[in-house]
């Protein structure tokens, strides 16, 4: 169906090596990634992690949807870097690398900016790859086995299940509005459709929760699972390799403070200057485009 756009954060069906790994080792990798990303300030490690996660995405055949979802990083990255250059989050004294009008640019925060960005990029890509290669039901089955509180699991499951429904609803309402002569593209078209979607959503959520509860959702006692998640030796290998690699790097980082390379990796003044120009322009463009679409009718 044309109305059903590809979901950026849903499973992309496939049969790759990565798809076949059971959820638990993948979850270990995601948690490990987050732990490592926050225990190091070594940008070599951080961007290697991001690159490695991206390679896994390529192997899984989810590159395109992953890149689509990563569009969210554009405003984050550009604003973060631009901000670090005009107002570094490190102690003074700052050394100026140049001026744009009255605006002074500093190089001191750039390393830290790349650290923050690296943490986000690495964790996000890994998490997205796992979500895109794992059947949600398998994920929840595993959560349940791990004794993750049922209500949390329930809310997460409900939210994920409602996403495609909402997407379709937006599609239906947009085409209805299009047939009444409204423009059916971009932000300006999506915005008015949110009102009926949310009104419908409340009714839908209530009806769905009544229906789920009427089928015993939330009952105490033993639950079984229709989808069988069986670990194979290869899953253990993936899990153990993940734990060892991440624990090693995390320990090495912690033993070296956070393995900060800001005194080793120095950014030339011209690089900082142009980085600011690019980041600020991209961020300004994002804002302008958003505002433009919001007011375009």
């Amino acid at each position, binding site marked *: 169906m044309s109305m059903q756009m590809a979901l950026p954060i849903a499973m992309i069906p496939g049969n790759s090596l990565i798809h076949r790994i059971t959820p638990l080792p993948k979850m270990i990798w995601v948690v490990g990634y987050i732990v490592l990303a926050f225990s190091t300030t070594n940008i070599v490690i951080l961007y290697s992690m991001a690159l490695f996660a991206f390679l896994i995405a390529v192997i899984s055949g989810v590159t395109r949807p992953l890149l689509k979802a990563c569009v969210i990083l554009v405003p984050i990255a550009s604003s973060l870097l631009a901000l670090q250059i005009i107002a570094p989050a490190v102690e003074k004294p700052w050394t100026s690398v140049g001026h744009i009008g009255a605006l002074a640019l500093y190089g001191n925060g750039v390393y830290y900016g790349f650290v923050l960005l690296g943490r986000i990029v690495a964790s996000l890509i890994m998490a997205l790859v796992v979500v895109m290669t794992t059947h949600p039901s398998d994920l929840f089955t595993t959560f349940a086995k791990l004794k993750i509180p049922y209500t949390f699991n329930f809310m997460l499951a409900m939210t994920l*299940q409602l996403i495609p429904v909402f997407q379709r609803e937006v599609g239906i309402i947009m085409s209805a509005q299009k047939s009444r002569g409204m423009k059916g593209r971009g932000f300006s078209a999506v915005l008015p459709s949110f009102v009926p979607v949310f009104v419908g959503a409340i009714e839908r959520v209530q009806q769905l929760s009544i229906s789920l*509860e009427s089928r015993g959702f*939330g009952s105490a006692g033993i639950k079984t699972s229709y989808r069988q998640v069986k670990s194979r030796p290869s899953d253990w290998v993936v899990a153990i390799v993940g734990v060892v690699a991440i624990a090693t790097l995390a320990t090495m980082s912690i033993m070296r403070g956070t393995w900060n390379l800001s005194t080793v990796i120095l950014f030339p003044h011209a690089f900082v200057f142009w980085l600011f120009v690019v980041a600020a322009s991209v961020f300004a463009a994002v804002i302008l485009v958003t505002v433009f679409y919001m007011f375009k009718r």
Partner: protein
Amino acid sequence: MPEPIVIFDDVSYAYPGTEELALRGVSLEIQAGEYVAILGLNGAGKTTLGLCVNGVIPTMLGGELTGTVTVAGLNVIEYPVREMAKVVGMVFDNPEFQMSQMSVAEEVALGLENAGVPYEDMKRIIPETLELVGLSGYEERSPLGLSGGQQQRLAIAAVLAMKPNILIMDEPTSNLDPIGKQEVFDMAAKLNRERGMTVIVIEHEVEVMARYADRVIVLDKGRVIMNGTPDDIFTRVTELATLNLRVPEAARVATLLAEKDLWQGPVPIRTEPAITAVNELLGATHA
């Protein structure tokens, strides 16, 4: 006589935040194995009545409930809906709002998983249930990609898999074409006859109900105003007409004819006997 499976004893109910009663002093009994049709205009309280049987009212929705609702010996106030689910399965009028899983098989599995049915049994029950509703071969399809009729049958399968004693269907065929409607009602009739399942159907199609139901309950403004066999109820043509309720065509025509002394004997409510009777009548006038 055994204890009725559903007992309403002077039940009144107001939804939270409302003053007006959606049910007013409802008392009724339903025997195990009965096929009951609930009729009434929009807003008469039919859905509300159904929600009382499966315990969504008052446990989930809150509001003011007085009187007692007893289902399979259980006072619904004392049991969460998920416990009542073992006894009562309820299907609602908007099937799409009841779908939540990635595949048809998982949708049917949901209730079984919650009840802790072992995997081996699920592997047997799921295809059996899908067969029953005519959805064999759809196991791996997405529920959202099914037609309205298929979705409705899936919603029914999802509660049937749990083998409830009571099946409540709230306007189950409002989105279906005539063939889809027929399938759903044939299926319900079969469950009722062959498995002794108690069936409660909220339905506007009087013709269909005249054919299948053992009993008809008519609600109006939250009150039970008629309660009897289809033959009792559907022959009260003028009364039903004053209430703006539909009457089976056979009964309407026969009553009209009877007013003009053209019809003798009992008023039929089903189409086939009416046609036979009319043919006989015509034969007699021709002779």
